């Protein structure tokens, strides 16, 4: 058995999914190969770390609340009625505490309309950039003294993209950095500012009035990306920034 085979089958071996003959050959190989023996120790440690019950997510609501609604036409019984009533109460409580407006999607996020408004305003003649440069070493220092943070100015991810410049903008009740990129004739505004808390948010996207709006947070910064570019290309761009 080669090292390559041994490492391919090791997981199945540790999972007790390898047949007896295969297991024997693997054990013989590992006994004679220090590198594969080390590989096995690391696999065992990883396994132990993944079995940590803390990694499991526990539902915050009681199990009952996931039960489906009662069947159509069933006769209410006192016990069932009680369950139903508590379900309704629980649903009501969830509704009240979470609020209808606080929400899961981005659509209700007031920032979406702010970001879009800012994007459209920037497209009016003369509003797009305060500093006009394709050089990030010109754009980034320009923000010095104008913002209380130093915004990251990522390089354009590929030759299709160009950095156009930057400007100051005002979003979420604070001054923010607006970076302007272009993909051919499409203008892309990238708004960035420090997140209020150290949070990571996965990339989300939303279509609003024909514009694509994407949002994510990582490494302590909140990012909003808006353009009339198609979702696929803008998504690639956003993912490149999120790396």
């Amino acid at each position, binding site marked *: 058995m080669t*090292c*390559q085979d041994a*490492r*391919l089958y*090791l*997981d*199945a071996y540790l*999972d007790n*999914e390898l047949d007896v003959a295969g297991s024997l050959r693997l054990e013989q190989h590992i006994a004679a190969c220090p*590198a*594969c023996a*080390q*590989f096995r120790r*690391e*696999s065992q*440690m*990883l*396994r*132990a*770390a*993944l*079995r*940590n019950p*803390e*990694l*499991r*997510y*526990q*539902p*915050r*609501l009681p*199990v*009952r609340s*996931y*039960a*489906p609604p*009662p*069947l159509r*036409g*069933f*006769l209410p019984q006192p016990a069932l009625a009680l369950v139903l009533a508590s379900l309704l109460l629980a649903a009501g409580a969830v509704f009240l505490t*979470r609020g209808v407006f606080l929400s*899961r*999607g981005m659509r209700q996020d007031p920032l979406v309309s702010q970001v879009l408004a800012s994007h459209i305003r920037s497209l009016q003649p003369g509003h797009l950039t305060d500093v006009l440069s394709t050089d990030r070493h010109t754009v980034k220092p320009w923000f010095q003294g104008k913002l209380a943070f130093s915004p990251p100015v990522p390089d354009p991810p590929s030759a299709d993209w160009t950095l156009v410049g930057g400007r100051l903008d005002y979003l979420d009740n604070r001054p923010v950095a607006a970076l302007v990129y272009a993909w051919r004739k499409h203008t892309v505004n990238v708004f960035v500012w420090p997140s209020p808390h150290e949070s*990571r948010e*996965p*990339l*989300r*996207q939303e279509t609003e009035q024909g514009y694509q709006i*994407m949002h994510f947070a990582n490494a302590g910064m909140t990012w909003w990306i808006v353009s009339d570019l198609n*979702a696929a290309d803008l*998504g690639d761009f*956003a*993912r490149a920034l999120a790396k």
Partner: protein
Amino acid sequence: LTSREKRRRFEDTVVPLSASAYNLARWLTGADQDAQDVVQESFLRAFSAFDSLRADDPRPWLLTIVRHTSFTWLKRNRPVAAWRESEELLDETPAPAANPEALMLALSDVARVRAAVESLPPDYRAAIVLREFEELSYKEIAAVTGVPIGTVMSRLARARECLKRTLEGERPK
């Protein structure tokens, strides 16, 4: 089966599996509220398909529904994340860590292990969750994710190799 009887049997056999259902949905959707929505929808689907449940162990059957519902949900609500569904991890020959101390240190930090698992493409993440947290067999994972057993084996091997490399390479904050 009268409808009341069906409901009672459903509550006895399937509803107690809520924790497993929630755990998988939470890992796949990435957020509590979204996982709750997915679990609720999964239970509705499970209830209407309850008559088709033949297996002795309803857990793989329920998790199949949860996984499917999670992916449908991802495609509809997080198209960017769902793009990664078909993504393949780098196919390199697995090797021992170049820096075993760094790996060991990272493994002792639950937050880093969690972040590493979260960074896997969804189907690899599902394989890890089903194997390590739900302790399903390869055969059951194959049934839940709808791929051959060989694919389950290689996905798990690659996912674990990827986890080791991610953890070994990260510097602690």
